[in-house]
């Protein structure tokens, strides 16, 4: 899990342009590198490996829900305690150890220095340290599966007193290991995020003004700012919870002067901006892909920027919509309903901007474009169903039902998974120097998308009918049983199996193309941004000659030009200057 596939960089480009450069050992090149591209690969492979684990966990608990009480093939019997651990770890892994490392760390690391025209991050060694801390956090988390009691079973939201007292959660060691792993993951992303912010602010190529920075870079930087601001209070809360677990304090114990609601507030003050941290990079990647495969200038670049800042700021004042029925003051619930409904406006506006980008374009239905289009369609469903949940009145009924689960999978899956595939299929040629197979890519795409909807549309229905979350066997609670819905629960489970099965197409495509894919040119997609001006894959140091930037990243189909694209670093010739 620590090293990328050894074949990945077998065809790395020339290393010889650096003065005094020498061949490095395997250890230095793959395990101890400070090169942002290698660190990106480390995050990518760790994240995707954990995605497979997270997907397996989902398979297990969905099998339990579809066929309760039966041994799950490939796992065994799901006891109540094990069920709690499965859902807790599925959620935690997917958010903290898949979505964030892949979308923010892997793509941020790979793209930012290349897209802004410099050779690496401003602090390459801190970059390396951030991955190492992240790896330790992943190892601790996985180790928790094997301790006495098993992995933490108090839900990824970890509310005390369930999470504070081992007598309640039955996983006391797992609970503390989980906290330590999460805290380390936070440290890793603070280190990495600040590196991204400062690199983008200070390391840009000459001529690259704020308005010439590609949208995906902006998005990852803004996501890093949101993360940095929101995680602070939760780090404080995590320390408090750890002390409650281990040292007998009572920060969250109402019987001894504490308040469990404080944890909830601290958690969600982070938790809500966190979902935007995951959303923004995906939105950015979709923007890049749409401009390239519609051969059209991105509609409203500055609008996108201002909207994103507005969304980011608003995301800090909506958090208690996760706590509407937790016992918060109902008057505060009114406030948070209003802000939550408000935040749907800027996101909707961005969807309109993307659609406007497509309108009148020459659309090429490549695999990355299919992913980008499906992102918009699926996220739309997620956003719209969020309105129901943001209204506190409706939420009283929907909270803790599968309606919520379906809603957040229609937002998280597009962000984390569709975003990941969109980014990977688009930048694979640049990362690995080969082209992916389009046919396999399309089969993978359709299988994944259809299966995804088969999983979650039934859950909207069962949730609206009243199916509660985090119940391991409805048959034990007569008012929960609703046998009429069992076929929907089974359908959802079949969807999971089909979804996981189709990933074989992607994995095969990925590894087969590393060796046998068509060799990629510098710029197979005819894109404008700077990463497409260097060899595929880029050599250490990225640019043989550091570029100067003359224009924004979305000059596609500029009238009067022969080609329909105009790289950012192409100097303006006197003739062109006259023509324009």
């Amino acid at each position: 899990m620590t090293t990328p596939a050894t074949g990945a960089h077998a065809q790395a480009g020339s290393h010889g342009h650096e003065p005094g450069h020498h061949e490095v050992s395997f250890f230095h090149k793959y395990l101890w590198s400070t090169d942002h591209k290698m660190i990106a690969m480390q995050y990518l492979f760790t994240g995707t490996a954990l995605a497979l684990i997270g997907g397996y966990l989902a398979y297990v608990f969905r099998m339990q829900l579809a066929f309760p009480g039966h041994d799950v093939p490939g796992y065994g019997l799901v006891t109540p305690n094990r069920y709690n651990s499965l859902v807790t770890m599925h959620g935690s892994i997917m958010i903290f150890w898949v979505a964030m490392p892949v979308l923010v760390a892997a793509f941020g690391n790979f793209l930012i220095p290349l897209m802004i025209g410099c050779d690496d991050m401003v602090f390459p060694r801190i970059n390396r340290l951030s991955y190492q801390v992240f790896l330790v956090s992943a190892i601790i988390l996985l180790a928790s599966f094997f301790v006495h009691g098993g992995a933490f079973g108090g839900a990824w939201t970890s509310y005390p007193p369930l999470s504070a007292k081992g007598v309640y959660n039955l996983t006391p060691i797992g609970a503390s290991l989980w906290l330590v792993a999460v805290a380390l993951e936070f440290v890793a992303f603070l280190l990495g995020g600040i590196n991204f912010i400062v690199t983008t602010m200070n390391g840009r190529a000459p001529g690259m003004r704020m308005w010439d920075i590609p949208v995906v870079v902006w998005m990852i930087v803004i996501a890093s700012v949101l993360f940095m601001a929101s995680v602070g209070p939760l780090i404080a809360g995590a320390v408090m919870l750890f002390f409650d677990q281990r040292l007998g304090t009572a920060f969250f114990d109402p019987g001894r002067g504490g308040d469990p609601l404080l944890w909830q507030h601290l958690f969600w003050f982070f938790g809500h901006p966190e979902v935007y941290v995951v959303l923004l990079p995906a939105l950015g990647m979709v923007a890049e892909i749409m401009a390239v495969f519609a051969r059209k200038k991105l509609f409203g670049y500055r609008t996108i920027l201002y909207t994103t800042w507005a969304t980011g700021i608003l995301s800090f004042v909506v958090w208690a919509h996760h706590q509407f029925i937790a016992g918060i003051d109902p008057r505060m619930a009114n406030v948070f309903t209003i802000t939550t409904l408000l935040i749907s406006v800027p996101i909707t506006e961005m969807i309109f901007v993307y659609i406007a980008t497509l309108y009148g374009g020459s659309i090429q239905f490549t695999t990355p474009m299919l992913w980008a289009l499906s992102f918009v369609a699926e996220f739309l469903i997620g956003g719209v169903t969020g309105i129901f949940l943001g209204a506190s009145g409706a939420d009283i009924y929907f909270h803790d039902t599968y309606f919520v689960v379906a809603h957040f999978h229609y937002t998280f899956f597009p962000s984390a998974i569709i975003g990941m595939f969109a980014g990977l299929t688009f930048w694979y040629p640049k990362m690995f120097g080969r082209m992916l197979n389009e046919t396999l890519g399309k089969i993978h795409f359709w299988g994944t998308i259809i299966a995804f909807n088969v999983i979650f549309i039934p859950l909207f229905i069962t949730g609206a009918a009243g199916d509660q979350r985090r119940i391991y066997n409805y048959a034990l609670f007569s008012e929960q049983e609703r046998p009429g819905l069992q076929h929907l629960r089974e359908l959802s489970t079949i969807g999971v199996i089909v979804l996981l099965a189709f990933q074989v197409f992607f994995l095969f495509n990925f590894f087969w193309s590393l060796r046998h894919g068509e060799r990629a040119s510098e710029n197979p997609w005819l894109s404008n941004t700077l990463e497409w001006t260097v060899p595929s894959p880029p050599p250490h140091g990225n640019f043989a000659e550091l570029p100067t930037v003359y224009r924004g990243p979305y000059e596609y189909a500029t009238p009067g030009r022969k080609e329909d694209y105009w790289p950012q670093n192409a100097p303006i010739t006197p003739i062109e200057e006259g023509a324009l």
Partner: protein
Amino acid sequence: MSAPARSIANLRSVTGIPTARLVTWWVIASEMFIFGGLLASYVMHRLAHPEWAIAASNTNTKAGAFNTFVLLTSSLFAVLAHKAADAEDGKGAAKYLRLTALGGFLFLIVKGFEWTHEIREGFVLASGGFWSFYYTVAGLHALHVLAGAIIMLIFAVDAAKNVNLPRVQCIGLYWHFVDIIWIFLFPLLYIAK
């Protein structure tokens, strides 16, 4: 490549602020949220629990005041180190950095005596709401003082050779931030009892 030369990105400065100082400001911003979250939680509880005044009356105001004086003085040394660094006086900067670190260690020693006395009296982390917050927030602050002092000593080694002088201002900024946190901790834990 165990200690690569600076990346070219590191040498650029599109914003006009040197990268090291820029990153220091962002680190300070992130720390504001960590301490802010903890302090906000404490203030909410303290305002709501007037009966914590009994426990709080046991904190040693004189020790707290002396420690405040120590940190203020060490901040003076930190900024004098910056002044020396700006004048390319590496040895002077190193001297002031070491004095600042000494102040930090003195702070920690006084805190050590304070806590030893309080623990002997039976007031430990789990002794109640006030004490839980007291040890947690002061402990987190003390960790930052320790880290800062150690980093200062490390930077002083280079500074004495007139190398990496811009770092002196940066660690100074961090130190002043830690001082400002204590400027608020002192009234919160020792005066507003």
